[in-house]
């Protein structure tokens, strides 16, 4: 790993960690309990560039590489999974597609406020009847004069309750070929744009995940990202980067759980010694440390491949699969080490345990990832 990380990456980690330890960690438990989105911290994060990590400087971004991106998401998630989620979704599946596929005017209009953290972005693909099978979406956009008339029911939208700029996956040719999926940008406040109730989720509770519905909402034709029919291509490109972000997020949560596990194992005494002296606990700590380190290597390697301009889809899929499953195992062991206290809200490990679970589900479930990975490993034969 020392071959991947440079001095710049170490300074990125140190400065983000110091910010998170001071501003996020102390409130992470409270915002989870209250299911509150901490605007006061999010504004500071925006000023420091956390919402435009890889956007070019002329658009107000920090123009950092993917390894830095992974480190930043890891560190924020180490403090709060919910805020790590906010940052990774905003950067990789809302802002990135606009940078990669948007026109100059669209970048000026949307990428700039997104990169500066003045506006929050969201990615609206999932519907009640379409998740893993993205081509099965039912939302429609029918062109009418200078606008699309959009009807959609999007669910489980991360950042949904606070997002100003939403990437909507829609069928632009509803009666035609099922591949005719396109991405149209909708701004909050447009007549017909409705933010549904916040979801009452098991974890990631400080993120305002909601449904977003559009009722005969007129969106200018200029809001189309790329061309009609490019939706799946844009979605897949966004998810390649997004997966790396989720891997980094899972890694950060697992790292936090490992640290809490070590701390508690050293403090808690049973049979007259700290429980860290008991072999059963040591075996768990060894597994936790190994899983975290392996997740880190896989995540950074996928990011480094991206930075060197090489293909990284397979590696980022493997990193996401491994890191999310490792995160569930590590947080489970952290709870186990804490015993009854681990099951109580008095310690943060129960939050890590709840936050961990969804990393195996969103941005492609473990099962979908295994399908994708198997295709890569076996080839097309």
């Amino acid at each position, binding site marked *: 790993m020392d071959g991947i990380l440079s001095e710049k990456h170490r300074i990125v980690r140190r*400065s983000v960690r110091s*910010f998170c330890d001071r501003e996020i960690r102390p409130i992470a438990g409270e915002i989870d309990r209250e299911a509150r989105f901490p605007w006061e911290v999010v504004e500071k994060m925006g000023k420091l560039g956390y919402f435009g990590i890889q956007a070019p400087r002329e658009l107000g*971004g920090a123009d950092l590489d993917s390894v*830095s991106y992974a480190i930043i998401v890891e560190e924020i998630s180490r403090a709060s999974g919910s805020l790590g989620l906010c940052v990774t979704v905003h950067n990789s599946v809302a802002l990135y597609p606009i940078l990669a596929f948007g026109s100059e005017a669209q970048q000026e209009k949307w990428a700039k406020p997104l990169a500066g953290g003045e506006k929050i972005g969201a990615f609206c693909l999932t519907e009640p009847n379409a998740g893993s099978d993205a081509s099965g979406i039912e939302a429609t956009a029918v062109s009418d004069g200078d606008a699309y008339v959009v009807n959609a029911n999007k669910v489980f939208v991360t950042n949904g309750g606070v997002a100003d700029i939403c990437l909507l996956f829609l069928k632009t040719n509803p009666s035609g070929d099922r591949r005719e999926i396109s991405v149209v940008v909708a701004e909050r406040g447009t007549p017909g744009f409705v933010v549904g109730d916040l979801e009452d989720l098991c974890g990631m509770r400080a993120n305002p995940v909601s449904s977003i519905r559009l009722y005969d909402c007129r969106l200018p034709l200029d809001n189309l990202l790329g061309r009609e029919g490019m939706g799946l291509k844009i979605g897949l490109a966004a998810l390649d980067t997004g997966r790396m972000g989720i891997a980094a997020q899972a890694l950060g949560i697992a790292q936090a759980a490992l640290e809490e596990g070590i701390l508690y194992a050293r403090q808690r005494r049973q049979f007259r010694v700290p429980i860290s002296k008991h072999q059963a606990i040591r075996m768990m700590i060894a597994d936790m440390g190994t899983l975290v380190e392996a997740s880190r290597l896989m995540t950074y390697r996928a990011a480094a491949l991206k930075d060197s301009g090489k293909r990284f889809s397979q590696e980022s899929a493997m990193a996401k699969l491994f890191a999310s499953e490792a995160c569930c195992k590590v947080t489970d062991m952290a709870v186990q080490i804490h015993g009854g206290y681990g099951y109580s809200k008095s310690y943060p490990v129960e939050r890590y345990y709840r936050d961990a679970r969804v990393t195996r589900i969103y941005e492609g479930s473990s099962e979908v990832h295994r399908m994708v990975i198997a295709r890569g490993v076996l080839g097309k034969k």
Partner: protein
Amino acid sequence: MVCIKSVILAAPEEQVVRTEDTSELNPFDRPVLEAALRLKELHGGRVTAISMGPEASLSALSEARAMGVDREILISDPAFAGSDTLATSTVLGAGLQKLVPFDLVLFGVRTADSDTGQVGPQTSVQLGIPFISMVSGIEWQKDVFRVERVADHFLEEYEVTSPVAFTIHPGAFEPRDLGLSGIGRAFESERVERWNLSDLGLVPERVGDAGSPTRVISMMRVKETKKCEFLKGDAREQADELMKRLSESGAIGA
């Protein structure tokens, strides 16, 4: 002018090896850079960061650049190896001489690795300029600095003309968070200037091992021991005895 150092984070097996992996900006220097940058924001001017050390010290200068300093200078030469605080002050003094005119030279109170606290005052002596230690507040008022310093529960105020040197109280200026684009920019291009022995016009005899009157003979970890003692007498006598011991040891005020 801010003099900073890249310190050692860990010395595995008691071996001190300075590499970029094991070094970082001395934490006592961050508030110093913060103080300098705040003065610049209020009154203009330029902030230059200077570090003496091997190539690994570049990391400290890069971090200073990410914070917002205008110019970075690395003073590095194999002849400097083994310098004690006097030789270090000789080198820094010679470097600062090349940068005259300046208004202010700032140092951290001490370093996190060797912890002598001598380089700031000694360098001021080399330069022949006034020096105030542990400064916790600086105001620039038309050619004079008004500074505050807290010592022994007294707040001292000084007025001093430039050029002058201060060490900065580590808690006085909360260092800013680094913006990500600042970090990105700091590593984009090689901007650090490098000066060596001959650039400074120094002779080898005054620096490094040769120019260092002090020798570290050995260094070992101190084992802390704890002793538990039960005070005798009734509760009142025990309390009196405890108060007496605490105040004698200086743990509480008399």
